[in-house]
Structure formats: C-alpha cells, structure tokens
C-alpha cells in the first residue's frame, strides 16, 4: 500500500462514518419525497379542473342555416378528448342551478370555479347573427373561491379561464363558418362574448373581490408569506445546532460533569441553556427577518408590476397586530420545542463531533414542513401529509401565517396547544435524562443497547467485563450502525421506486397538445408525426401543437410513425405503434367528428378519414397511453 492510499483510506474511514452516510441517505430520501410532492402538486395542478356551469340551458346557439352549437357540449367534448369517460364528465363539468347566493351554490356543489353564462346567451348570439341591431354581446362570468394552497394552488383556476377563452374561440370559429359577409360583424365574430378579468369574481375569506384572479391573490400571499417558513427553518436549525454543540463540547471538555456536581438544580441547568439559546434564536430570527425582507422586497419589486399589485389589506387578509402577536407566540413555542428536542438529542451526544451528526434529525424535521407548506400548503395537503406536518411542532408557525390570514384560528390555537404540551413533555424528558446515567455514560451503557448487542451476539467472547473494550465496543457499535444504514438504504430505495413508478401506471401523455395538455414527453417527435389535409391531397400540414384546426372540407389524418420499433398495427380502433415503452400505443380521439376506423397503409403509416360534425373547427387529441384497455 502506498503512503498516499494509506492516508486516503484513513481519511475515508474517518469521513464516511455510518452517521454521515445515513445523513446523506436521509437527504436523498427527503429530496426524492420532495420530488414526489412537487410532482404530485404539478399533476394536481395540471389535472382537469372541476368546475360548474350555470345557465347552461342558455348556451344553445342555433343559426339560420340550421347549424348548432352548445357551450356545455363544447366543454363535454374537451373532457372527452382528454380521455375522460363520458359517464364521468358530469363530475368534472357540473351543471349548477343558480338558486341563491352564488358562493353558497358553489360551496354546496363542492366547486371552487363556476362559469356563468349570461341569461339569454344563445338568443343574444342568434340575434346578432341574424343582423339585429342594438344588441350587445353576452357575457360569460367566472367566479372563484380562493383556497390557500401551495405554489401551484391557483393553476386550476387558470385552466378554467383558458377553457372560457377556448370556448370563445370555438364559438367564434363556429359563427365565422356560417356568417354572412358583413364586415361590421368581424369584431363580434372574433369575440362573440365578453369574458376575462373584468367579469371575474374571486371570493377570499368570504369577501368578494372583482377583477382579481385567484393566481394574483396566490402570488401576493406567497410573496408576503414565503419567507416565514424559510426563516423558521433556519432559526430552528441554527438554534438546534447551538444547543446540541454546547452539550457536545460540555461533554468533551468534561465541564458538564463539574456542572452536575455543583449545588444547582437540574431544572436550572436545562432552563438556563434553553433560555440562552432561545434569546440567540430570536436575535438570529430578527436579523434574518430584516435581511430577508430587504432581499424579498428588492427581488419582488420588478415582478410586482407584472403580477399586478394586489394588496392583501384590500382583500381583507392582511395580518392584524393581534395576528402578529399570535404568530410570534407560535414562533417562540416552536423554538422552545426545538430546544427541548435538542436537549434530548444533546444528552446522547458523546462529543462535539457526534453532536453535529445529532442535528440531522432536527434539520430534517425543520425542512419537511417548510417544503410541505411552500409547495402544497396546509390546506392543499392530503391527510397523511397533514398528520405528519401537524406532528412536527415547527410546522405550526409556518401553518399559522396562512391560517391567520384566512381566519382559521382553530387550527392556530390547536397548534399552540400542541406545542405547549410538546415543549412540556420535552423539558420533562430532558430533566429526567439529566438525572440519569446516560448523560455521563452515553448510550453505550444503556440496557437497550446492551440487549441489542447480546441479541446480535456482538459481545466479544472472553473479554473481561471491565476492560476498556467492554465499556465501549467500537466494532459492535459500527455493526449496529451498519444495520441501521442498511435499513435506511432499503427504505430509501423503496421510496425512490415508489416515486419513479408513480410516473408510470395509467398516465396519459398527450403528444399533439390537444386542448388539455397533460404532459408532453418521451414519444413526441421521434416516434410519430401527424399530418392533416384534404382527402386525396398531397398537401398535408404537419400538426405539432395547438388546440383547434380549421378543417377544409373532407379532411384526412395521416399518421406517420417515424421510428417505430416494429410495424404499426390496429388494436380495435386504436393504432398501435410499437415502441421501446412496453404496451404503448397511440389512440386518436376526434370528439366532435365522426371518424372512420383507421386504415393501416404500410408499416409506418395509418390514415383516418373523418367528417366534421357540422363544425368548422375540430378539437383533436392524440394520446399515447401505456395501459392496455
């Protein structure tokens, strides 16, 4: 062995301790879980929105040439095009009767978005089309109930807004096809009804705000609250590290032994350490708060004009002085809880170095709620995540920011009560630990550890009981840690597998970007392309994106598979393009047309002929699915 390898080996042995490996693995798990969480939120945000439509009866438009258009049918077809089974579409696009207060109606129907057609919508369109003068365009109103969720919370309302925009385009295309050549109508034909921010209402905390989109509120809320979870996380980690390190160095220098034999109460030692660290924590907190607010102000300023200046005070959700006082109390209790945990962890630290490793569980506990609150928000999280988040005491000041804004005092006070109990229990445990041998002897002498060693037959045979090796077995300890690390690896691998598999299964991938973009990936251009043109014409247009296409006469869709791994074939009415992805095939959905069954022309080309169903525009989706149904 060369001198260099000898040194490298020794350094690696010191640096790659089971503790440090375990901490890296836990971080990997945390980020894998985080990826899953964000992915889940993105999926949720991308998922088809559930919304209500009111006055849908008024959405019928019948023109003089007999052609018909209907708003509800349009939405129906969009969802059908996104592979939603026909019988389930009613769960997504709910027909709502306006029986009273709009917001009560929304709550009763369990919807956070409602599209309301103006009464007489269809008649107004028909009148305009028949050349009647003095009739204004109808309006499509949008109503939203703002829900405080994480980063992507407002995206589904964006989708509803874009659906209304597409409804306008679709009606416009329908009207243009049947319109008379009257230039004065062009503006009407392009925009047959009014919609948008002017006709939009968002209810925040029971207060109606017109012209403010939920996403504008979400961005205003997040820009003013985002830094709080980050600051809390930093304070907790910093204060925790101070206390644990202080315990570690007291043990290393044996000053703790001296301290414990002085005529001082154990509670005074514990409380003294906690108070000192809490003061340092508050000083750090204040410093970070000031620093971060400068940082955020400078960073957000150029953006605020783009996002639209939404004042939280105008929306009635700004924090009052009482709210701030409650928030400070919640933060203080979170710090005390953190210190309680640290005192317990610190009691097990053998020295300064092991104390540093001990801060890891605390850091994870502080990061987890921060990510949850930032990405999905308390209100947008599932029951399990909510349970875990609630159990971590540091979550509560993070949750409290939004809860206080939206008047959910029950949650805030439940959190405070929980933290009081948690802190009391932690301090009691600490005082008990201070009265036990563990503080002096460490974990190596505890009954549980000895039992574990005995059970694992790790105790060296024939060793004398009182030899130094018998007091602390480094090898046995390492073996124990290796078992723990192995367990962590298995759990991490399982977690990663779950996260990876989550992306497979029955996910639908839309490659031509129909109306509803679900995900555009993997199989797009390198597997097949799609051409659209008139029957018999060689002049075909490559379709690569876009929701609606003008259909000139008798169109034909030609599907050309570019790099299939084998011959394309038919499976029922679906075209199978073999790919490296097992069971993948392509299906073409033409919702408002009648399409013939596809015909396979050669190993790479399939043709589908279809007739537009009285409409000049076709919403089309081509989906790659990987489940066999």
């Amino acid at each position, binding site marked *: 062995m060369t001198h260099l390898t000898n040194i490298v080996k020794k350094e690696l042995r010191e640096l790659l301790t089971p503790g440090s490996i375990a901490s890296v693995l836990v971080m990997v798990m945390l980020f894998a879980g985080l990826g899953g969480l964000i992915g889940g939120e993105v999926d949720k945000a991308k998922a088809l929105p559930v919304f209500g439509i009111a006055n849908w009866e008024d959405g019928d438009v019948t023109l003089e040439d007999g052609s018909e258009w209907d708003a509800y049918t349009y939405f129906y077809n969009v969802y059908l095009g996104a592979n939603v089974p026909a019988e389930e579409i009613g769960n997504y696009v709910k027909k709502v009767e306006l029986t009273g207060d709009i917001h009560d109606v929304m709550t009763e129907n369990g919807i956070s978005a409602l599209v309301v057609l103006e009464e007489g919508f269809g008649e107004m369109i028909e009148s305009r089309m028949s050349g009647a003068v003095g009739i204004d365009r109808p309006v499509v109103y949008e109503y939203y109930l703002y829900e405080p969720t994480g980063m992507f919370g407002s995206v589904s309302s964006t989708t509803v807004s874009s659906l209304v925009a597409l409804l306008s385009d679709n009606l416009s295309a329908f009207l243009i096809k049947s319109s008379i050549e009257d230039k004065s109508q062009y503006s009407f034909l392009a925009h047959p009804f009014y919609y948008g921010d002017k006709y939009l209402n968002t209810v925040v905390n029971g207060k109606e705000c017109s012209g403010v989109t939920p996403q504008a509120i979400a961005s205003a809320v997040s820009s003013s609250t985002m830094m709080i979870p980050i600051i809390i996380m930093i304070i907790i980690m910093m204060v925790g590290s101070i206390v644990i390190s202080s315990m570690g160095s007291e043990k290393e*220098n*044996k*000053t703790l032994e001296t301290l414990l034999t002085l005529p001082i109460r154990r509670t005074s030692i514990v409380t003294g350490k906690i108070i000192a660290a809490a003061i340092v924590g508050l000083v750090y907190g204040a410093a970070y708060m000031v620093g971060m607010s400068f940082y955020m102000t400078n960073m957000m300023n150029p953006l605020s004009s783009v996002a639209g200046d939404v004042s939280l005070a105008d929306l009635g959700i700004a924090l009052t002085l009482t709210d701030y006082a409650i928030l400070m109390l919640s933060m203080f209790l979170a710090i005390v809880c953190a210190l309680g945990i640290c005192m317990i962890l610190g009691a097990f630290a053998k020295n300064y170095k092991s104390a540093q490793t001990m801060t890891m569980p605390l850091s994870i506990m502080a990061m987890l709620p921060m990510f949850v609150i930032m990405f999905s928000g308390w209100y947008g999280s599932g029951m399990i995540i909510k349970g875990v988040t609630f159990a971590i005491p540091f979550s509560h000041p993070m949750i409290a920011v939004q809860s206080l804004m939206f008047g959910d005092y029950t949650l805030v006070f439940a959190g405070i009560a929980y933290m009081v109990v948690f802190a009391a229990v932690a301090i009691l445990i600490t005082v008990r630990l201070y009265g036990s*041998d563990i503080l*002096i002897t460490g974990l190596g002498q505890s009954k549980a550890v000895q039992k574990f060693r005995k059970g694992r037959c790790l105790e060296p045979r024939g060793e*004398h*009981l009182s030899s130094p090796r018998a007091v602390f077995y480094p090898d046995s300890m390492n073996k124990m840690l290796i078992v723990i690390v192995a367990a962590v690896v298995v759990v991490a691998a399982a977690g990663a597998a779950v996260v990876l598999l989550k992306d497979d299964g029955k996910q639908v991938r839309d490659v031509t970007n129909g109306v509803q973009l679900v995900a555009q990936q993997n199989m797009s251009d390198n597997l097949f392309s799609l051409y659209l043109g008139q029957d018999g014409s060689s002049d075909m247009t490559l379709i690569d994106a876009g929701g609606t296409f003008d259909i000139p006469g008798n169109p034909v869709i030609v599907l050309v598979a570019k790099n299939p791994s084998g011959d394309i074939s038919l499976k029922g009415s679906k075209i199978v393009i073999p790919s490296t992805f097992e069971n993948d095939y392509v299906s073409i959905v033409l919702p408002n047309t009648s399409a013939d069954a596809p015909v396979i022309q050669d190993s790479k080309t399939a043709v589908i002929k279809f007739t537009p169903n009285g409409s000049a525009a076709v919403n089309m989706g081509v989906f790659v699915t990987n489940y066999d149904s």
Partner: protein
Amino acid sequence: MTDALVLDDVHKSYGNREAVHGISLTVKEGEIFGLIGHNGAGKTTTLRMISTLLRITSGSIQVYGYDVAKEPDKVRELISYLPEDAGAYKDLTGRRYLEFIANFFATGAEKDAMVQKGIEIADLGDRIDSKVDTYSKGMMRRLLIARAIMPSPRLAIMDEVTSGLDVINAFEIREIIRSIAASGVTVVMSSHNMFEVEMLCDRVGLIDHGNLVLLGNPEDLKAQYGAKSLEEVFVKVIKGAEGSQ
C-alpha cells in the same frame, strides 16, 4: 472522628454487566483516602457515584450523614468533584471561570473572597486573565484544583489528579492536597501513581474487577505483604488474584 464518607455494599450495573460488586468502606473526616486499581477496575464509577453523577444500583453511600441517592442536593453542597482530564470553558479567562463557579456558592464580598482564594491557589500570576484555551495542561489542572478547593468543600473527590503532569506541577498539587487535608477537608482520590498514593494517602483501597480487595494504610499493607513499596503490594495482590482465577 466523624465519618465523612460511608459506602455500604455499593453495586453498580450497566444493563446486565455489573461494574462494581458490593464495595463497603468508610473514610474519616480530614483523611486522604486513595483508590487504586488498574484501568477499568471501577474506580471512576465509584467516584462518580459518590459525586451524585451516577445512580447507585444497590447499597448506599453517605456523605457526612446525607444519603447520596435520597439527598443529592445536600451532598452537592458538601462535595467538590474534579474529574480526570477535566477542562474549563475555553472562551472564559481563568478569573472569569473562577467567578462563574463562585457565583453558585456565594454572593458579594464572600464571593470575591472565594475568587481571590481560588486565584491564590491556582497561582497563575498574570495568566489568570488569559483565556483558558491558552493554558498548558499543568496550568489547567491548577485552575481546576483551585476551582475545586476555593468553595471550601468538606469532601474533595479527585480522579487521577496528577496524571500527565510534570514533576514540579505534580509536586505542587500534592502539596495543595496535603494542606487542604490539614485544614480538615476530607480527600478521596484515585491514582495510578503508587508512589504518590503511598506518600499522600492515610489509607488506600485497592479495587480489582469491581471488588474492593484490599483496604488499609500503606505502611500496614507493606508489612502485611512483606513488600518494600505499595507498588509491590499492588502487583502481588493483582497477580495473586489472577493466579487464583
């Protein structure tokens, strides 16, 4: 003479392993008592039990009549424990450290007098105002001895008090111990240095594998084993114990 320390059938177990198997001994007031034994014999465990740091598994320890398990706070008012290789808070100066400790025992003029006494015992000159982390091992030990003695404890417990010190420092510390014992303070100390124990201690106890195998004053023990030094007694007893096992 008052009994300063009474150990009665003291056992200490760590899980299933018993480190101390029923030690009984009595130390009189003003006596210097030495605990000797090889590494891991149970000396430190015994001293820690006397100092209220470790719980006693069974048996009892009394310090000036106060039970260590039942009245630890009372016991802590009477004792001063100096652990082996102990340190002080590195960011403090020697003087500040002595003040920090004195604050637990006295206030006002009484406290100032206590600190002054500590400074005199430590005898560090100007360096008393230097930070502790600049001290040599000998200086650190003098500061800690001063810390242990300045509150005038009635029982001083010292674990390997001169280990690793040079001749001069070790000598001076032994002198300090002698002088405090002369003033009536009871001293219980452990050491590997048999000559030190022989010179300093009125009585010694030899611990082997958690058992008290020998107890008496050094002169009597030497006569009993026909040995020239306490070291020879130690070797004979330990070798004899190993031979009989």
